């Protein structure tokens, strides 16, 4: 009986004990939460030094002490002795360690963070030296996480982004660095590089100007600025800057002695007949002069095709209007805006254009010269020896079926396969077919030869597939013509039909 009671009592006690424990636990939980919320960063410990540094740090202190003591009799040394600096050093020594102890808590904690960030920065810098940009970036990231208001970390990270060609990131980092430290020259320089490569030249030049304002003797920045200005200049000059362009040309005569402005040249006393002709002297024409510019300075507009016509020396073409034009050199030293090339040209040209209103601009040049190429001139044509020659001539004669017909007729049919090799194009073929069809009388007796030789060009079967129904119709007619007019054999006709896939 006793035993049973005892067990019962124990069970009850245990349950009770547990219950009290649980209430205790709940109270404790609440209390812990309160305590935890009250925990603020007010905490600083006096810690013993890092184990491995204990030995290392002592000799450093010893080393500092034996600072050359200046003897009382050594007057020259005392003259050089900077008392203010020495006083400052002594003061700093006093402040150094003791201030950390006295102002514990917040300041010390900040200091700690700064130290850590500094460590990360140094690690980042070594990565930069090894050109491990990604590792360096992660180091700077951590440094920035620790200390958000140090321009150096941002600028250094910007450099890494710049090296990695993440130009937008680089620019934003540099901007942040500049925001934090408006006199940070390197940040400006890096942002300028980023912006230059991003194409915002104006912003880049502003940054460089800021650099030069802060450091007037910064050669790298000056060079970069000049380069950018040169780049900006080629894209066009502002009207206000064009007057200044003349002196710059004159000041640099050596660089471009071959291309002076014609109008400004005084008539040279001894000009050979050749030169005279070249300058268009005595003729009612304008001379188009070549303009030499480095590729990056050239206009980005598509080139206009200007047909050039060969005229023998001394020979005049009285009936036709002069086809020679003058292109006024545009000064590439001018600075300023990038897209009013033409207006600039026109500004400069009126004096040359007097009396030639119809050649006011290059656009009109083409209109004028197009008409100039006439059938008669085609006589100067020479039969091509390869497809390149043929194609350039063919394209030149575009739209002038007569001329093309003439050109075709001077080509010996038997040479067609060797001329075209494997470069015959389907549109050329259909043009040829059309010409043959339209002018079958001119090619009397040779149509079949042309067709046969064309079909002998390499890879012809592939080209024939692109013939349009229209072309095929013309071909059929041509073959009929061959049969009737040229007495081509049935076999040959069948063969051609087969080859042209009729």
């Amino acid at each position, binding site marked *: 009986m006793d035993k049973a009671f005892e067990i019962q009592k*124990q069970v009850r*006690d*245990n349950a009770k*004990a*547990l219950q009290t*424990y*649980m209430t*205790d*636990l*709940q109270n*404790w*939980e609440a209390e*812990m*939460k309160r*305590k*935890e919320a009250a*925990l*603020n*960063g*007010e*905490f600083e*410990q006096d*810690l*013993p*030094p*890092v*184990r*491995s*540094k204990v030995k290392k740090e002592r000799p450093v202190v010893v080393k500092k002490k034996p600072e050359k003591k200046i003897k009382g009799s050594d007057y020259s040394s005392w003259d050089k002795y900077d008392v203010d600096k020495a006083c400052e050093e002594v003061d700093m020594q006093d402040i150094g360690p003791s201030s950390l102890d006295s102002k514990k808590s917040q300041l010390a904690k900040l200091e700690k963070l700064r130290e*850590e960030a500094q*460590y990360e920065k140094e690690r980042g810098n070594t990565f930069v030296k090894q050109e491990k940009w990604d590792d360096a970036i992660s180091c700077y990231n951590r440094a920035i*996480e620790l200390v958000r208001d140090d321009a150096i970390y941002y600028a250094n990270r910007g450099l890494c982004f710049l090296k990695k060609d993440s130009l937008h990131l680089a620019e934003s980092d540099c901007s942040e660095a500049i925001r934090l430290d408006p006199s940070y020259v390197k940040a400006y320089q890096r942002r300028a590089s980023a912006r230059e490569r991003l194409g915002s030249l104006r912003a880049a030049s502003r940054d460089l100007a800021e650099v030069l304002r802060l450091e007037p003797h910064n050669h790298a920045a000056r060079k970069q600025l000049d380069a950018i200005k040169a780049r900006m200049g080629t894209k066009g000059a502002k009207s206000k800057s064009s007057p200044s362009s003349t002196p710059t040309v004159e000041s640099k005569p050596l660089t471009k002695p071959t291309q002076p402005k014609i109008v400004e040249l005084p008539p040279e006393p001894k000009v050979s007949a050749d030169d005279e002709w070249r300058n268009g002297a005595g003729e009612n024409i304008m001379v188009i002069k070549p303009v030499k510019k480095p590729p990056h300075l050239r206009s980005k507009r598509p080139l206009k095709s200007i047909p050039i016509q060969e005229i023998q020396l001394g020979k005049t073409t009285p009936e036709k209007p002069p086809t020679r034009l003058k292109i006024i050199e545009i000064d590439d030293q001018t600075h300023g805006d990038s897209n009013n090339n033409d207006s600039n040209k026109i500004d400069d040209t009126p004096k040359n254009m007097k009396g030639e209103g119809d050649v006011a601009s290059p656009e009109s040049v083409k209109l004028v010269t197009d008409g100039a190429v006439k059938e008669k001139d085609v006589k100067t044509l020479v039969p091509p020896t390869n497809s390149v020659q043929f194609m350039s001539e063919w394209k030149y004669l575009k739209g002038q079926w007569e001329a093309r017909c003439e050109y075709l007729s001077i080509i010996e049919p038997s040479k067609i396969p060797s001329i075209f090799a494997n470069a015959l194009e389907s549109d050329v073929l259909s043009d040829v077919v059309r010409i043959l069809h339209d002018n079958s009388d001119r090619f009397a007796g040779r149509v079949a030869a042309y067709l046969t030789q064309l079909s002998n060009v390499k890879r012809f079967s592939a080209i024939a597939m692109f013939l349009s129904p229209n072309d095929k119709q013309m071909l059929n007619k041509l073959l009929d013509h061959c049969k009737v007019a040229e007495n081509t054999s049935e076999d040959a006709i069948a063969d051609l039909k087969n080859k042209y896939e009729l």
Partner: protein
Amino acid sequence: MEELETPQIITHIEHNINHSIFDTKWIPCSAKFVVIGSLPKGTGTLEVFEITSGEIRKIKEIERPNSFKCGTFGASSDVERRLATGDFKGTLEIWDLEKSCQVYITKEHTDIINSIDGLGGNIVNCGAPEIVTGSRDGTVKVWDPRQRGKPVANMQPMKGETKRDCWAVTFGNSFNDAERIVVAGYDNGDLKMFDLRTMSLRWECNLKNGVCSTEFDRKDIPMNKLVATTLEGKFHVFDVRTQNPTKGFAQVLDNSSKSGTIWVARHVPQNRDIFLTCAGNGQVSLWKYEYPEHRYQVDHQGVSSGVPGKLRRLQRMVISTQPINALDWNRDHLGLAVATAYDQYVRILVTTKLNLQ
């Protein structure tokens, strides 16, 4: 009367976690704990839980590419409360759990860090904050969070010696700024005691079975007792007060329980003579070390040697079906502990009447 004072061990809360868990630690000065583990895909997680009136609530989770193995708050102050972790690849990291950011990282070990311990953060005047890590690469390294990259001490086998897998490390004897001892247990049963002040091996012995866990009863007093648990259900308690030049330390061996590997032993923070062992069969046992009448005796040559005490089991309880691999007593509340087991459960254990012992 005796029976009325027997402590009870009760599983207060059980919480299933869907991945492997390796270690757990209370966050100092809070009702929160962090669970360290690894996801099936091989990434590591740190999860912060809070206990609120009988429930566990997850507050935070951090995931990293490498599985974490172990962690400690020992080297961090109660205000900063930074967790130092070791992972499967040998990386030591220190975390600011409030900001979820990493404040320190170094990878000097070439293999998994099996065990970690920290000291110097939480108790005033007990030396520099230091972390000790033991790794499969055979080395035991001591770190100072203020020194980046390089350990402040490195204990490794001599050239030519075989490298043993270090399974357990612990700090102790840190009763002033200079003194400090590291004890490391290895897979071959070696137990080595390194003196960090003299940078020398102070003592070593072999326990015949791999040492799974080792702990001093207190870290911040002149070393008093050391528990080392091993495979095959055995654990040793050394009285480390008195070292005999020939016999070393007196010890008690317990191999009474056939419970498989004893994974961990942890002393109750409020009572250094009571400790809990966690076994491979999911059983936890509460032990009390009873000192002998005289702790040491002097032989005829005037050399003193320790006298072992006795072990008494206060309570035992099977709480899990799988081995319990980690346990941590709460420093602020007597009898409150958190344990992780291989059945992927984290448990809050409550032990009553510890104050009566």
